[in-house]
């Protein structure tokens, strides 16, 4: 063990417990050859002493009795709850809540999936419509329709003169 590791070893020992006389002697011998560690070691020892003598938290004399009483109350509440459960919920039906939860989760999943599928179909349909419209060739220039009504009127043949037709016959 090198010097650092050895010093660390002593430190970690004293963090948890006082050193035994043998360990103390070994440490003193080590410190004699490493005076640079002396100052820090004194601080560590002082801190150990402070922590060791930290006052104990006050514990009421009836603490254990109170804990036991609290546990008894807890037990009574549990017994009451299990009796209530047993009366209205026979043990043979214990599986029912789990099955119900599974059923509800499955139903919600299915409905959600169906809804999402329908939504997706709508989007696909819309996209197809957009594509169809986009593929239509552009309309002719409106200028060519300027005399549309007149031209249309030219093509209209007048109604046959029924009387003249009869005379000709």
């Amino acid at each position, binding site marked *: 063990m090198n010097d650092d590791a050895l010093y660390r070893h002593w*430190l*970690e020992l004293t*963090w*948890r*417990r006082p050193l035994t006389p043998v360990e103390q002697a070994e440490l003193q011998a080590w410190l004699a050859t490493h005076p640079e560690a002396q100052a820090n070691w*004194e*601080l*560590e020892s*002082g*801190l150990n*002493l*402070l*922590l*060791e*003598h*930290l*006052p*104990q*938290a*006050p*514990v*009421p*004399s*009836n*603490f*254990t*009795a*109170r*804990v*036991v*009483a*609290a*546990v*008894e*109350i*807890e037990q*009574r*509440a549990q017994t009451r709850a299990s009796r209530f459960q047993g009366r209205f919920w026979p043990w043979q039906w214990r599986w029912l809540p789990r099955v119900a939860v599974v059923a509800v989760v499955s139903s919600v999943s299915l409905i959600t999936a169906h809804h999402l599928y329908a939504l997706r179909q709508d989007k696909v349909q819309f996209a197809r419509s957009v594509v169809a419209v986009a593929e239509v060739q552009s309309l002719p220039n409106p200028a060519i329709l300027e005399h549309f009504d007149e031209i249309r009127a030219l093509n209209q043949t007048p109604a046959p003169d029924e009387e003249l037709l009869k005379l000709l016959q």
Partner: protein
Amino acid sequence: MSAELDPDAALMLRVKQGEAAAFGELVDKYKQPVMNLACRMLRDATEAEDLAQAVFVQVFKAADRYQVSAKFSTWLFTIARNLSLNEIRRRSRHPADSLDATHPDLDDQPLQQVEDKRTFSPPDSLLHGELQDKIEAALAELPEAQRTAILLCRQDELSYEDIAMVLGCSLSATKSLIHRGRETLKQKLKPYLRTGVWSGPG
């Protein structure tokens, strides 16, 4: 670890079988260290008392889940730390609530009255009152993990490995937490450590 090696585990086995006396023994043995930890985590003796009680009730309720292979003290301090952290979180959210409010369904239960026969010894700590305040304040200012590591370090029954388990970190991280915490304490308390003001009670 077998039940023969760890007497606490043997007691827990008896608790599992519904033996109230065994539970009482465990409470008696660990009430002081749990209270010490709770007190320094919460910095309020009354709340610490409630919390320590909740820790032991939790131990009783979870007795069925206790694995004999686990060291009892490690398990107990893990519960104590978790409940303390929960309480600190709850305090920050609802500063005015009390721990008693956590079991509203039990409010109708008559609370068994047990007399507190605690005797208050003359406060020998008065001589060092100011210094103790400084230490407590310095400890309270440490980050929670460092403070808990240093406090657990003084528990005879906990090894560094056990402390690491309670803190949920590696062995090297645990030692590093202790080292850093102690360095901070040394800096803050240096004048007292150097002058040797403290020579221990008595």
